């Protein structure tokens, strides 16, 4: 009478201390419903079950425990997906060692002792101790599971001492219940599990009573459970009545991890590295129990010319199932040896060797981080509606985007533009470097002055834009888009190295905050703070603002006079607050992206990535003024010269329409059909109509004057839509 039980289907199953789930089931007279030769060693797939909601668990490897919920896998098909349950998140632990020994049998223990004696730090992993290795990755990194955690061991060397597994039979009837490997028979006998009359094929059990069958295995007989095994001798077939069959058909290296470590410092210890002795070629029956591949299917694919092991694997899926070829590989290699005349090497082994749960697979996986400016909490406290924009959280608006818009157009407003890409470049070769980098002359930029620049790739396509601001002969501040600066930094470093340029490049994006003071009263606001040496339009100057050391740039993205104040990021709250206080008499309020996107579109400013495509040249963007091929060589120049010689096929143009703005992405039609699509669209409060940018197909070399979007009339319009002379930005 057992006092401890687990549930198996609808039954309560008792167990003894030390029983695995499978041993307890067999002791209770319950055989795995899928049939097949039980190995009791974790090699085969014949005792798979669902344990506590996790499918594809080998019952022979799970210690029986009170309260376990075990469900048999169906004897055909796949187990049902478990009902969603709340589980603790699987965590991953990363360990570091000199040597990892996988398998702590006799050979593994000897290897561990050897390395420890040499003063090396060794970590041993053995499935029998509950730490089952699932894979070896370059590093090497050995990944194991222990049921609660995923363990990643980073090491210098791996020793695989996983031994060998018993070869499974291939013959008609291998799916019957009551077949066991010889080691399983002995283990069950020692555990006191009664199997009934046993007939042994090949190597006999050492302890379990049995009858030894003579001859070669032909087939197993029975309905669901084996009742007899048939062998062939010189005298013909012979039937052996039985309740169980013990199969001692030889051993095959358990070498999947060894093969997985190919090219890495992974070595074998013990029998896993022994030369393999293949079984006789199979003639009938199932070769791969995981994928249900029979000898007949091997005949079929090999008959069609798939004679290489890797092709047989891919065409039949033999070796791709739960056991990853441990069962079928010796038979398939033996089969191909006979058919092709040469023994193929085992197929490539890749992680994972064991199935992981979804939770285990994503252990410690984290989404990428999103940046917050140092004003983030102030924006939130001020009612800012925050959202991700590129890699940053940014305020979309503060409750009234229209009021924010008008503050910029008619008064003064501030915006947190800390997300702007910012770099400093210096060095003896910096002028030549930037000349090659940018398609517009850099030499003509005087100290204290700025210039708008495009960045072109080798194909002449625009991938970023920003400003080049010269500080002195050999020092520049460069700006980039918020999303593009990381790539731009890599781009610059790569080219500096490729060209052998002596330059220093420092990305300051995350180190410097930036606040844009914009609007017709922006200068009044700053002058009220005692700043009387503000830079002129397209100029910049280092100065203190409210006691904060700052680099002030006179630029304009909004179309109004603007001062972009770069400063140490930890001083942003102080500067923000000072600007709000000083701006109170001017009615200053902050504005968010919602207003900014309208303001910039009224000026016709593009946003790289939104208004551009992968093949957007400056000419297609109507930005030819920003590219000067005559200045000499620069990145993309050759492509610019070639594409300039081709007739223009499409262009980004300004468009207007009455009424509300259509969705960005809305398709544009001309008289002949599809023309392009809208990249940016906003209703302009100032112009009282919708303004847009969109890609348009040229007809007879011209942009059509009218198009249709959502069955509404669209007119071509020049950009900027607002203040085309730029007098307000320069004011």
């Amino acid at each position, binding site marked *: 009478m057992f006092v401890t039980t687990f549930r198996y289907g609808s039954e309560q199953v008792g167990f003894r201390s030390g029983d695995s789930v499978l041993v307890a089931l067999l002791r209770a007279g319950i055989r795995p419903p899928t049939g097949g030769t039980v190995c009791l060693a974790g090699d085969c797939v014949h005792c798979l079950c669902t344990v506590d909601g996790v499918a594809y668990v080998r019952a022979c490897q799970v210690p029986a425990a009170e309260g376990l919920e075990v469900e048999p896998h169906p004897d055909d098909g796949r187990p049902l997906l478990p009902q969603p349950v709340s589980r603790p998140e699987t965590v991953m632990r990363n360990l570091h060692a000199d040597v990892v020994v996988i398998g702590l049998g006799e050979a593994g223990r000897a290897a561990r002792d050897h390395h420890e004696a040499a003063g090396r730090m060794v970590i041993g992993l053995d499935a029998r101790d509950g730490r089952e290795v699932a894979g070896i990755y370059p590093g090497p990194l050995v990944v194991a599971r222990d049921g609660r955690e995923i363990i990643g061991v980073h090491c210098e060397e791996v020793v695989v001492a996983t031994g060998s597994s018993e070869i499974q039979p291939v013959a008609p009837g291998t799916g019957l219940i009551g077949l066991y490997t010889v080691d399983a028979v002995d283990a069950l006998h020692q555990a006191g599990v009664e199997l009934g009359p046993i007939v042994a094929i090949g190597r006999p059990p050492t302890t379990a009573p049995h009858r030894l069958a003579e001859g070669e295995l032909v087939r197993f007989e029975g309905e669901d459970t084996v009742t007899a095994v048939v062998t062939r001798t010189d005298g013909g077939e012979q039937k052996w009545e039985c309740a169980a069959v013990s199969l001692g058909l030889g051993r095959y290296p358990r070498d999947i991890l060894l093969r997985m470590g190919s090219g890495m410092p992974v070595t074998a210890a013990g029998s896993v590295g022994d030369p393999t002795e293949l079984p006789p070629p199979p003639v009938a029956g199932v070769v791969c129990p995981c994928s249900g591949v029979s000898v007949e299917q091997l005949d079929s694919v090999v008959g069609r010319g798939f004679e290489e092991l890797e092709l047989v694997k891919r065409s039949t899926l033999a070796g791709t199932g739960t056991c990853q070829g441990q069962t079928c590989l010796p038979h398939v290699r033996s089969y191909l040896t006979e058919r092709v005349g040469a023994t193929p090497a085992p197929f490539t082994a890749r992680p994972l060797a064991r199935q992981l749960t979804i939770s285990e697979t994503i252990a410690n996986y984290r989404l990428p981080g999103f*940046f917050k400016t140092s004003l983030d909490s102030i924006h939130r406290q001020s009612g800012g509606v925050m959202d991700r924009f590129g890699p940053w959280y940014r305020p979309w608006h503060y409750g009234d985007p229209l009021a924010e818009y008008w503050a910029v157009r008619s008064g003064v407003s501030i915006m947190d533009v800390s997300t702007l890409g910012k770099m400093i470049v210096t060095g003896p070769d910096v002028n030549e470097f930037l000349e090659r980098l940018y398609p517009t002359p850099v030499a003509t930029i005087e100290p204290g002055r700025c210039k708008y620049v495009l960045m072109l790739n080798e194909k002449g396509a625009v991938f970023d834009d920003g400003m080049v601001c010269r500080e002195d002969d050999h020092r520049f501040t460069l700006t980039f888009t918020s999303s593009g600066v990381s790539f731009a930094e890599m781009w610059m470093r790569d080219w500096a190295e490729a060209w052998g340029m002596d330059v220093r490049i420092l990305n300051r994006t995350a180190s410097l905050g930036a606040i844009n003071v914009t609007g017709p009263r922006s200068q009044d606001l700053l002058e009220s703070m005692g700043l009387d040496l503000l830079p002129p339009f397209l100029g910049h100057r280092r100065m203190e603002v409210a006691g904060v050391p700052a680099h002030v740039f006179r630029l304009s993205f909004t179309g109004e006079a603007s001062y972009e104040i770069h400063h140490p990021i930890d001083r942003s709250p102080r500067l923000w607050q000072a600007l709000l206080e000083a701006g109170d008499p001017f009615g200053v309020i902050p504005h968010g992206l919602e207003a900014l996107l309208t303001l910039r579109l009224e000026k016709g400013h593009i946003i790289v990535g939104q208004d551009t495509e992968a093949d957007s040249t400056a000419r297609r963007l109507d930005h030819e003024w920003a590219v000067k091929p005559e200045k000499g060589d620069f990145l993309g120049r050759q492509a610019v010269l070639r594409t300039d010689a081709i007739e223009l096929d499409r262009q980004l143009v300004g468009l207007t329409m009455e009424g509300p703005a259509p969705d960005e992405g809305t398709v544009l039609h001309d008289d002949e059909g599809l023309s392009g699509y809208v990249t940016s669209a906003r209703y302009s409060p100032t112009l009282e109509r919708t303004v847009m940018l969109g890609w348009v197909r040229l007809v007879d070399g011209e942009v059509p004057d009218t198009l249709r979007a959502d069955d509404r009339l669209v007119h071509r319009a020049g950009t900027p839509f607002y203040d085309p002379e730029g007098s307000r930005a320069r004011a």
Partner: protein
Amino acid sequence: MPGLETVVGRRINALPAALDAANWPAGARVVRIAPDDVFLIGDGPLELSDRHAIVDHEAGFSGVWITRPDAADWLERNAVWGLAPDGEVAQGMAAGLPVKMLADGQEVLVLVASVLADDLEERLA
């Protein structure tokens, strides 16, 4: 992990050889981010042979000192990399974010870009 606070210092981008040979201020901590990139924590004169070096005020990192065992335990559960020898910087993704660690005896300085400091604190809460 205790709360992160802004760590102020100097950011230096210079020729690697110049950084290798630099005379750092006494008592300063040198966080070598890359061969050409140093975050220097500590005041005092700096002797650097590269006249084109960029030396700027740096306030873009947040950090905290923790004990070496706490750092090792934290890395074990959040990173695939371990601590570097004393005085050297180990860096990589930890809890999904780029983190740097400078070991100094029984203490370790954990550094993260301030723009990710809130995120790191939330992930470790």
